[in-house]
């Protein structure tokens, strides 16, 4: 449990508010966030993990180190405005719109992002593609055919994961893989809910 003081601070703040309070749906931050998201340019739509997503071409994400503030992490990739953090990731508005592809800036990977149309949650595209294969032995061949790197083939799950190259449009690549006759289904992987230590 690393956020021990966060919990305590919230507890202290909550003590005077134990009586039923206003419904949280009307809170200003939620409203502001919704407005902010609605103002952002949208790109291609696709489905992953049964969720509908839409690209956010002007929003990127970068991983920060424990010693960095979000702003310090952004400075490493050319700056921007912090929208939120997801675990070690800093989600930010970039200075210019980018494709649905990973990029490397000063040795640090910048990830494209998406928005969950239903929840308004922002997701990160790590550049990986999940493909369910008709025959797991075709995993390498599928990678070669689409210019992807095979990250790992899990024959017992009939699923292979591929990595798109830096600059390669991962949404388009996933669509191409999905159309491959050796593939049952394929979709870009989206990190919408990052796991954190408890």
């Amino acid at each position, binding site marked *: 449990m690393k956020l021990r003081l966060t919990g305590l601070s919230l507890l202290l703040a909550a003590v005077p508010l*134990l009586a039923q309070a206003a419904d*949280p749906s009307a809170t200003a931050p939620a409203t502001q966030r919704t407005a902010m998201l609605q103002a952002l340019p949208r790109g291609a739509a696709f489905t992953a993990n049964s969720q509908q997503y839409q690209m956010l071409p002007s929003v990127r994400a970068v991983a920060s180190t424990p010693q960095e503030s979000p702003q310090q992490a952004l400075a490493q990739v050319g700056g921007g405005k912090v929208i939120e953090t997801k675990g070690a990731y800093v989600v930010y508005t970039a200075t210019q719109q980018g494709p649905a592809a990973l990029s490397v800036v000063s040795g640090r990977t910048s990830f494209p992002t998406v928005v969950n149309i*239903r929840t308004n949650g922002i997701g990160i595209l790590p550049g990986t593609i999940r493909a369910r294969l008709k025959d797991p032995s075709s995993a390498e061949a599928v990678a070669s055919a689409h210019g992807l790197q095979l990250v790992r083939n899990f024959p017992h799950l009939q699923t292979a994961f591929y990595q798109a190259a830096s600059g390669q449009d991962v949404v388009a690549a996933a669509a191409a893989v999905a159309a491959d006759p050796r593939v049952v289904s394929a979709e870009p992987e989206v*990190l919408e809910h*990052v796991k954190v*230590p408890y």
Partner: protein
Amino acid sequence: MGMGLQKYTETGLFALMASALLLSACGGGGGGGGGTGSASGPSLVSINMAPKNVTTALNARVQLAASATYSDNSVVDITKSASWSTNNASAVTVSATGLASPVVGAAAGQSAVISATAGGISASAVISLSALPTFTVATADPLSAQQWHLQNTGVNNGYADTTGTSNAAGTAGSDLNVNSVYSTYGYTGYGVTVGVVDTGMEIGHEDLKANVVPNGSWNFANNTTDPTNTISTTGDHGTMVSGLIGMARNGIGGIGVASNAQLEGFNFLSPAVTQTAAIEIMSLGGSAANPNSSNVFVFNQSFGTGNTVDFPMDPTVEAQYASGASTLRGGKGALYVKAAGNGFLNMCTNYPGISCQNANFDPSDTLPYNIVVGALNAKGVKTDYSTAGSAIWTSAPGGEFGMNLAAVNQIGAGPFIATAYDPAMVTTDQSGCLVGESVSTQNVTTGPFSFFNLGGANAGGANTNCNYTNGMNGTSSATPNTVGTIALILEAKPALTWRDVKDILAKSAQQVDAANPGVTITLGNGPYVAEMPWITNAAGFKFHNWYGFGAVNASAAVTMAKTYVSAMGTFANTGWIAGTVPAGAAATVPDNSTVGVSVPVTMPKVGTSGVVEAVQIQVTTSATGGWTGDLGIEVISPSGTRSILKNTHDAFAGNNLNGMVLESNAFYGETGTGTWTVKVVDGWAGSGLQTVTAVSMRVYGH
């Protein structure tokens, strides 16, 4: 035959042996190889083994050494290159590097002859097995008496912080009840491999390294077998978790619950690792090489999403859990143990007694493969922060915040609530005083403000080198304490399946906080039970959303395991069965009312016996300005048992439910055939209305 032996290195010996094999295959061999007649260099004369005859406990490995003596009287260590064998593999096995390991299930008095062979010459040693040694927590290691979760005397109030302490007293006996496991049986988790899926693991730590599986861990950031966290300098969560499981009983530091369990670390949570599904699967048993996680018996997952919105489980990761539970550990299934969360008080304007976060908010918590764990404090009741929910299976010590008032005042931090000064956990920390909790404890915004963590002469010199902390807490701590207990159970009876272990934990759990009244709130038309007190279901199991079946009771569990006869049958599920949602306006949930919308679901018999092990539901709503935090969702079984799967007034966000899976363990052991009821209540006035559009249920059991 000219062997060409020029160097006495182990590499040279491998070359020698390869040459011998080649010549033999060509018909030119003779004399058994081994360079005994080399024309160009000294020949192998004899092999010596040390120790030659040794008696070892049933849970104590012996590292044997072999040395070769050559004709020029030179001696070369051939431990890593000799060929090792045993004449009694049911008693003692031996690794390729001469590590002799008693076999789990072997008996005292058995013995084995271990041989090392090279160049056609052999030497041997006799390993005789003796009974498991017993010990007590109080004297196991220097810090073990301060590890209240192992043996809470109620008077060790310093809890490893004996200078200027203001930590509150605990309650004697509020612990894992594990001391008698050590003092009666001597079990220490021997033969059980635990995978710690976390931020890292300091595999060279003085109190872990003896139990770390050589080359068994994995660092996904650099694809090596060393997941030591070099990124975080203010504490490594995975190292702290690992210590609670497997600190060695070695005369230094403290002890883990299973001080002889084998540890493997997988740094899935490292900030340097992108959390893809592939890496998660590789961490959870889905990979047999680079890394090998398929040899893990018990997975520790002290993490979660902290989520507050409806979202589905990753289907490929879910498939890995199912695969691991059916195929690993020789088909008996790996155990997956997971933290419930630390969000009881966070994320919402807390309504007294109702958890802001629900264990059901994290989709992986709702899988029957995961044993979800809540956290207890040193008084034996739920910690302030421990997330509640019907997906919880059991509870274990997790501790409060372990702050020292004098340390808080010294640094000018605080003030904090009273429980901040209640004990946290003593465990391993990043080694040295320049990293880890010794650093973070000096940070006014992080804490945890402890003289013990500062090391040196502080706290009576109990942590001189800053290799330990007394500030670990969370359901992250409760989880490894449960994992350690499971390791003891599996040592007692290795043949248990994953469901047997769950069954034992449920049956042996100890009820705590028995008078907990639950929470009753007043809605527009009258009182509504928004959180249940302890219930006793139709199968006789006691259950509470704060505690699951109760506190882990290691002594009872291990004792039960020794004579346990499985009656769990084949694991089955009913598939998703749709309920009958009322038509029209009757599907709209009345605002601020106990009436709710009730949906009957007729369930077929699960498996061959119809016995329930877990119940999952999916609820979908449409909303007119509604808010899912308003909704309370409960399930009533054919036997009349009521379980709340989602509390009204919680932190769930969003305007409608989209079929996220919720799970309840409250019906464990009941007969599931018949009509169930899923009831949705809106317990908060205003903010629009929700209409139930679909309800479905799936029952797991046998």
